[in-house]
C-alpha cells in the first residue's frame, strides 16, 4: 500500500474515533438522565410547584422552575434578538468590511468566551446600582447579555451566506438596501436565523451561573417581572446537593425535563422553518 493510502486510512480511522467519542458521550449523558430521572417523572412533578416537605422527598413538583426557565430564556432570547438583528444586519449589509464591523466582530468573539458567572456578576452589579433585587427581569438581562454574542455571530454568518447575486437581483429592480434586507435577505436566511435563535435559547435556558444572583430562586410560580423566579438548572443544582436520594432523583428528573424542553423547541422550529426552506434559493 502506498503511503498516501495509509495516510487516508489513518485519517478516516481518526475521524471515526472522534465521531464515536462525541456521539458516545452524548448518548451516555442522555442515558444517565433518562435512567435516573424517568422513574420520578410524574404528572405531579410537572404540574405543581414545591409544597410542604418537597425538599424532603414529599409532595409537589418543579412547575415553578419549568415556568421560570421558560420565561427567563424566552425573555432573554427576545431581548437579545431585538439587539442582535440590527447589529448583524449592519455587519453584513451596511458596514461590510468597515473598521467598526471588525471591532464589533472581535468584541463578540471575546464576549462569547466569557464565563457566564461573569455576566451574572456584571448584571448583579448593575442591579445593585439601580436598586433592583433578584428578579425575573434581572435574570432576563443577564441571560440576554450571555446570548447576544451567540446570536450576533450566528446571524452574521447566516446573512453572509446569502449570495451577492441575489441581493443584486433585488437592487437591480430598484429596491433599496433596507427593502432588500427585509424582503429578500431575511427570507433567504430564515432557516439559518432560526438555528441561531435556537442555539442562543438553548444556551440561555441551560445556564445556571448567570441567573444565580440575578434571578434568585423561589418556590412560588413566577408572577411579576420584579420578583425572583426559579429555574431548572438551579433546581438541578439545589436538589442534587441535598442528602436525600429521593430528592437527588428529582434533580435528574429536572435535568430530563430541561432536555425535553430544548428538544421540543428544536423540533418545532425545524418544522416551522421548513416552509421557508422550500423557497430558499440555492
Amino acid at each position: 500500500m502506498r503511503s498516501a493510502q495509509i495516510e487516508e486510512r489513518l485519517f478516516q480511522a481518526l475521524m471515526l474515533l472522534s465521531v464515536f467519542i462525541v456521539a458516545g458521550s452524548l448518548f451516555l449523558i442522555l442515558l444517565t438522565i433518562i435512567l435516573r430521572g424517568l422513574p420520578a417523572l410524574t404528572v405531579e412533578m410537572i404540574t405543581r410547584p414545591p409544597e410542604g416537605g418537597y425538599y424532603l422527598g414529599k409532595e409537589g413538583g418543579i412547575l415553578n422552575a419549568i415556568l421560570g426557565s421558560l420565561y427567563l430564556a424566552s425573555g432573554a432570547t427576545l431581548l437579545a434578538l431585538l439587539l442582535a438583528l440590527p447589529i448583524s444586519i449592519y455587519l453584513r449589509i451596511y458596514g461590510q468590511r468597515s473598521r467598526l464591523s471588525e471591532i464589533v466582530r472581535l468584541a463578540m468573539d471575546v464576549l462569547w468566551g466569557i464565563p457566564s458567572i461573569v455576566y451574572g456578576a456584571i448584571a448583579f452589579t448593575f442591579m445593585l446600582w439601580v436598586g433592583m433585587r433578584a428578579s425575573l427581569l434581572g435574570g432576563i438581562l443577564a441571560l440576554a447579555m450571555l446570548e447576544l454574542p451567540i446570536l450576533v455571530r450566528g446571524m452574521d454568518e447566516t446573512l453572509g451566506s446569502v449570495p451577492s447575486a441575489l441581493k443584486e437581483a433585488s437592487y437591480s429592480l430598484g429596491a433599496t438596501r433596507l427593502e432588500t434586507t427585509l424582503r429578500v435577505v431575511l427570507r433567504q436566511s430564515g432557516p439559518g436565523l432560526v438555528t441561531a435563535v435556537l442555539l442562543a435559547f438553548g444556551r440561555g435556558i441551560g445556564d445556571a451561573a448567570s441567573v444565580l444572583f440575578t434571578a434568585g430562586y423561589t418556590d412560588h410560580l413566577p408572577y411579576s417581572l420584579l420578583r425572583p423566579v426559579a429555574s431548572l438548572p438551579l433546581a438541578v443544582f439545589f436538589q442534587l446537593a441535598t442528602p436525600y436520594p429521593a430528592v437527588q432523583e428529582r434533580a435528574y428528573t429536572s435535568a430530563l425535563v430541561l432536555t425535553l424542553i430544548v428538544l421540543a423547541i428544536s423540533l418545532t422550529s425545524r418544522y416551522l422553518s421548513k416552509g421557508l426552506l422550500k423557497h430558499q434559493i440555492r
Partner: protein
Amino acid sequence: MPRLHMRICEFNAWYGDQAILKNITADIPAQCITAIIGPSGSGKTTLLRSMNRLLEESEGARTRGKITLDGADIYAAGTDVTEIRMRIGLLAPKPFPLPMSIFENIAYGPRIHGQGTKRNRRDLEQIVESNLQAAGLWDEVKDRLHTPASQLSTGQQQRLCLARALAVGPEILLCDEPTSALDPISAERIEGQLKFLKEKMTIVVVTHMLRQTRRLADHVLLLWMGELIEGGTSHKLFHSPRDPRTQAYISGDIG
C-alpha cells in the same frame, strides 16, 4: 438614424488599483439591440453594470466619467439610484429568483415602487399575467403561480427573471450573457423574446458568442482589454472592420 438613448462619455472604472475600463465613449441607440462583445476580461460586464450603477455595490469599485440617460448624467450628485435602476433593468447571467412564489417574484418590483398599495389585487394580478406573457412563461406557470419559484427549471427561471425585470416597466434592458447558463432551446426562447421586446425598448446585451451577436445585434461595441476598439452597426463591424484586432477577433484568430 434612431434616437440616442444612452451615452457613455469618457468613462473609466477601477477595481482597487486595477483599471478595468479605460476612457470609453459610446452611444446606445433607442429601440435597437446593442451587443457588447470582446474576449474574457475585456470589461464587458463591468461596462454593463456601470450602466445601471450596480457596479457600486461591488467592493472596491470606483468610476469616473459620465453615462447619460436621455441627456441626464446618471452619476450626477443627487441622482436617485433606485429610479435609475427602475428605468434601466438588468437580466443577470445566472437566474436568481427571489426566495418567494412565482407570483411574488413578479409582484416584487411593482410592490416596492408603490404600485401594490395604490393598485388593488386585480391590477397586480394583471401586471403578473401580462409580464409573464411578455417573457413567454405564462402558459407554463399559470396554474402554479403560488408555488416557490425555486422549483422552476433553469430556463424557466431565466424567463421569470425577464418577466420580473419587465414588471417594473424599464425603458432599457441590460442583459449580461443572458443565455450562458441555458440549454439551446431555452436560449433560443430568450433570444426570441429580446427581438420581440426591442420594438418597445432599448436592449443592451453582453455576450462572448459571435454567432449570437450576428443573430441579435443591430449595433456592436467591441471591447479589448478595457478599451473600446470599435463600435458601429453590426453590418459594418462584421463586413468592413476598421481595426485589425476587430478583423482578427471576428475571424476567430484571437480571443
